[in-house]
């Protein structure tokens, strides 16, 4: 049963979906505070390269080394996001151009490759990597084995993150404040919420999540450093946030859905069916466009739409 198409696709869909999920959660937090960050791809790549560097250099037990590497990746991602936050929050720059600049600065032809090259990381397998944490007897269970018990610690941690972010946004005061900042910074400001601080904090946390998402590739999926190993996952993550109507729980569904589409062509090939992989790979993008059109109507936008102040700088004097 465990080799059947459905089980294989679902199990690897979760594995491929995890980096998307982390990055999308981060982007969701930033966007909920009103900051659109198109630099996800760049932040992921820097997270991937720094996480990989850390795992090669930290001499500790596997668990500690991996934990440290994730920390380093998150920090590196946050550092990249700080550039964007400074430019768009403090200096009021155009968020789209700044985000693209971040992807160019940090991306395939930029800092991540520079670092990977300079730290001599290419062509070495990771010294430690994330592996399944449940014993084989669990993983061999029919159907649920590979899907539920066959994943790595990173995949399970993502579930916790989804829960935390969802609770944060709906059940805590700071979370509600974030949403106020994203919907109407002027009103939030009048309430005494520090808009600048909220936007900085959530852009940085968003960067940290993207860094972890990138490290998922270099420490778990690929487990090695190859320049540009995310192959555009950062853009899918941005799409995913819209696809999920800015809701963390839907992000989870969407991430695994998109992950399954990535896995499907390979799985089909294993079953002797050859389908052009491009067909499935393009579906996430097409579906995102359709989802976006669906939520564009005025009524839907109020209920499911983007934070009203997304992409707009907030200048108190110019209200």
């Amino acid at each position, binding site marked *: 049963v465990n080799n059947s198409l459905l089980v294989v696709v679902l199990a690897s869909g979760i594995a491929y979906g995890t980096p998307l999920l982390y990055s999308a959660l981060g982007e969701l937090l930033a966007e909920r505070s009103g900051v659109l960050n198109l630099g996800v791809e760049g932040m992921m790549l820097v997270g991937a390269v720094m996480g990989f560097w850390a795992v090669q250099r930290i001499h500790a037990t596997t668990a500690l080394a991996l934990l440290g590497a994730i920390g380093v990746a998150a920090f590196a991602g946050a550092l990249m996001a700080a550039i964007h936050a400074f430019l768009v929050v403090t200096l009021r720059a155009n968020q789209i151009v700044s985000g*693209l*600049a971040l992807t160019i600065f940090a991306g395939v032809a*930029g800092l991540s490759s520079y670092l990977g090259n300079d730290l001599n990381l290419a062509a070495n397998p990771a010294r430690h990597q994330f592996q399944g944490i449940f014993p084989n007897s669990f993983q061999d269970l029919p159907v649920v084995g590979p899907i539920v018990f066959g994943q790595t610690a990173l995949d399970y941690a993502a579930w916790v993150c989804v829960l935390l972010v969802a609770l944060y946004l709906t059940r805590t005061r700071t979370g509600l404040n974030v949403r106020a900042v994203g919907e109407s910074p002027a009103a939030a400001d009048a309430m005494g919420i520090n808009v600048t601080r909220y936007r900085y904090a959530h852009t940085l946390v968003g960067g940290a999540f993207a860094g972890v998402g990138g490290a998922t590739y270099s420490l778990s999926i690929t487990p090695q450093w190859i320049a540009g190993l995310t192959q555009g996952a950062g853009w899918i993550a941005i799409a995913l946030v819209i696809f999920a109507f800015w809701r963390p729980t839907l992000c989870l569904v969407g991430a695994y859905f998109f992950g399954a589409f990535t896995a499907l062509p390979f799985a089909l090939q294993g079953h002797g069916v050859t389908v052009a992989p*491009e067909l499935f790979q393009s579906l996430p*993008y097409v579906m995102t466009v359709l989802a976006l059109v669906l939520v564009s109507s005025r009524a839907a936008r109020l209920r499911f739409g983007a934070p009203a102040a997304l992409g707009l700088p907030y200048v108190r004097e110019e209200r």
Partner: protein
Amino acid sequence: MRIERRLEQPRWLAVAVPLVSLVVAFAVATVVLLATHHPPLHTFRRLFDAAFLANGALTETVVAATPLAFTGLAAAVAFRMNLFNIGGEGQLYAGAITGATAALLVAGAPSPVVIALMMLAGAAGGAVLGAIPGILRAFFSTNEIITSLMLNYVVALILDYLIFDSHSYLRDTSGFQANVFPQGKMMPDSGTWSTWTLHGLVVPLGALVALGVATAVWLLYSRTRFGFEVRVIGDSARAGRYAGMRTRRKILAVMCLSGAIAGLGGASQDGDFRHQLDPRGLTQSNYGYTGIVVAALARYNPFAVVLIAFLLGGLQNAGYTLQGADFPSGLVGVLQGLILFCALGGELFVRYRVRFERRRAPAAVEPVS
């Protein structure tokens, strides 16, 4: 510290700020190089040599700059109206696909006809792709940033499909070799765009077309009613609507124009440089995204776009030429990013005045703008 809006922007600032930004960007790059034990001056010298001074470097720089001029103009046209078309990448691919198809279809015709048809087809392909986010934005108020971005990936996948995973008309299926290493069909000679040589500098037809497009865009935006309305809508969509301007039509027209310019760039890739549909080469170059950088640095002025495209083209060309073990890879992207960060940050000083004063000092009363 207080930041207040300038009522008028002094002219000298528009020149001084970009120059200072450039200096700051190189200063930061110097720090990066020093921190990673590369000699900065030597590295910059090699970069500059490879971009502009070395034998044949200028020709290669023009080759790298031509697509950036097209995508930069495409972005500038749309961004000027606050339409954030970041689909230049996909629109360029679309133009390359339709341009190549046109060249192969009418291969027998005389060369000028083939070239003209390639340009038309390329522009049309780009325009159609640009029209999709345009229509969605105009009639469903769907955010064009994301839709145009998503379409980039869809077209990139179509490009891959045409050459690598199908036996399409554009794929070379002539021999054993072509079946093992899939590639695009070679274009007919009649579809090769002409070049002119000036003192050893080879000027491709595409570069001249880009210059022509820049002039046309400048005329359109500064000398016609259409351009005036586009600029008004860009500065204040509400003001434009109250003045009775047809915003929807303008959105659609500008998105098509933007797409057409990028598509022309795609046709120029086929005719000027690659002479076949080359998915890997096109998708790895990121012309579309870099074009947005070019447009932003040029502050959406079409002639400045051409100049910046030339400079960034030099940088990219140097990056390719120096690729190797002894040159830090990724430096070109780092430099480009830094320049753009600094230019974006510098923009603040053009639009606003930064004043340092004590916390408790009574604030000067200024008229609300």
